[in-house]
């Protein structure tokens, strides 16, 4: 059965679209005003670019795959090797560039998967209410009391090495945050007029949630996603540092740092550059996330 009497706030109607456009334009203006947000956007774009094209940008692509050149071990930074070389003569610049791909893409994947699972759980809990809500939320809250890093480590170790397993392991500790957010938003929207209208027109609960409620709560979810990417990248690097997740020769910033530890302080460049890369990535995405939040969530304005 189709819903014929769609209220004005319904997504897709001309009035709503025009209103959204105005909001977006105003938001984009505010975003441009904030210098920090623009810097964040620049860094994030730069990293995204490297993440996609990294392996081809690296000057020594063979080394990314694992080739070594022990004659050139531990060369300090120079024109030939801007980031120096490591213990087996590999060019640090190439490794760091290639590492961007793993850290950034894995971080994004974690956030997306966490958001999807969290939204499913949260929307179900929020819309269904009652016992379903109670149970799901108790479960979510309990999961939140567990130490997320240790949990991710344990699961990743149990699943075995590999990027997919690592992403899955981290995503498991990521979804509760989204679940709570989405639940709160769904509960807030549940009682609005357009939901009643849809229900009166005979729409099934799943359809109401998917087509009507979810599109209206996209904003806070996007804000949280963008704020979380930085920390997801940090978690990926953390797992790499501890030695769980990806195995050599796959260059991952955290594991590069871990190896470099043993060569301090003499060969400082083997640690400084991967470490700084992690910092830059997290910082850039955090700036971006902060800026997006200022734009999309007017309640959070200073």
């Amino acid at each position: 059965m189709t819903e014929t009497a769609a209220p004005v706030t319904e997504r897709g109607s001309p009035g709503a679209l025009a209103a959204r456009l105005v909001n977006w334009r105003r938001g984009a203006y505010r975003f441009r005003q904030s210098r920090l947000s623009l810097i964040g956007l620049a860094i994030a774009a730069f990293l995204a670019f490297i993440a996609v094209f990294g392996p081809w940008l690296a000057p020594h692509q063979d080394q990314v795959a694992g080739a070594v050149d022990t004659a050139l071990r531990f060369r300090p930074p120079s024109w030939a090797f801007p980031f120096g070389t490591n213990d087996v003569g590999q060019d640090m610049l190439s490794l760091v560039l290639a590492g961007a791909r793993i850290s950034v893409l894995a971080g994004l994947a974690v956030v997306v998967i966490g958001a999807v699972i969290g939204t499913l759980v949260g929307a179900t809990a929020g819309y269904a209410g009652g016992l379903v809500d109670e149970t799901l939320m108790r479960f979510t809250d309990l999961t939140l009391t567990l130490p997320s890093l240790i949990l991710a480590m344990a699961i990743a170790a149990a699943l075995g090495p590999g990027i997919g397993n690592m992403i899955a392991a981290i995503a498991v500790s990521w979804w509760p945050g989204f679940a709570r957010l989405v639940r709160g938003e769904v509960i807030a929207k549940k009682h609005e007029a357009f939901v009643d209208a849809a229900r009166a027109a005979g729409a099934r609960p799943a359809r109401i949630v998917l087509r009507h409620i979810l599109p209206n709560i996209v904003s806070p979810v996007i804000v949280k996603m963008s704020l979380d990417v930085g920390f997801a990248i940090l978690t990926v690097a953390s797992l790499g540092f501890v030695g769980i997740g990806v195995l050599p020769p796959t260059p991952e910033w955290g594991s590069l740092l871990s190896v470099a530890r043993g060569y301090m302080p003499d060969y400082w460049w083997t640690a400084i550059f991967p470490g700084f890369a992690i910092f830059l990535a997290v910082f850039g995405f955090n700036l971006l996330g902060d800026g997006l939040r200022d734009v999309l969530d007017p309640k959070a304005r200073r």
Partner: protein
Amino acid sequence: MLRYTLRRLILLIPVLVGLSVLVFAVARLLPGDPVRLAAGPNASEAEIRNLATEFGLDRPLPVQYWSYATGLLRGDWGVSIYTRRPVAEDLRIYLPATLELVVAAMLLAVMIGIPAGLFAAAHRDRWPDYASRVFSLGAISMPRFFLGLLLQLAFAMWLGWLPLGGRFPLTEDAPATITGFLTIDSLAAGDLHAFGLALRYLALPAFAMCLSPLATITRMMRASTLEVLQQDYVLTARALGLSHRLILFKYVARNALSATLTIIGLYFGFLLGGTVLVETVFDWPGIGLYATKAIVTQDFMPVIGVTLSIGVLFVTVNLIVDLLYGVINPKVRYE
């Protein structure tokens, strides 16, 4: 106040039960065969089966949970397949070390963060505020293990002021164990030399840990201070002549503290689980390091033990925060 406290304590019980079930379920659901690992590559099937029975792994799941749960209450937290010691004993050794680190880091974060937040709010939109915002974002983004490494490079390797790692020099006599906190124990024994040593070893790891909560506490304090400054009762206080300093440090501070208190409680929990990396960098003998080794060897009793104790501590700290909330905001007590 008493009734409020009792109510909160009673609510704690189902949470703790739920926690134990959850941890047990996750541990059992994970793939991996620690028995096989512990038995070694040359063990025969019979030996592995015997080992399994010895560890009680052949019985049905609910029975296993029951014996596990009752064991927990009795103080029997299983045995570490790796160290061959009871987990409870391992925890008794390693947990205070981590707690000392986390408490030190939180103390630093609170002592610097709260005044910094008040200061930033009092100078809103001027350069100290702007600078603190950038610094906060940078501090949260900095990976703890990289920061630890940098601190080691700077203060231990290049400047030589502070030790590289560990908790106490092996060549010296540690004070008698009362709390497990080297700092407190050495003070209790009146051993100032040991106290100084303990502090020197604590300094770098604590600092590496404190940056993240410091940044968040500053931001939170700033935000809630600004919000409080808008309130009507602040206008009334000003209208009746109370001095700016009195208003800020007595009234506004207490009103703004409640939101920050929640953050402090949450961060305590986060830090407990997050010491893994710093303990690795600084060779700090805490539960982070213990858990890491256990994870790598798929020794799940210690992992369960660590996870559970962190969960329990987290819930307890939040309870304390709730109680403190009742002190700061009297309305809450009467709900």
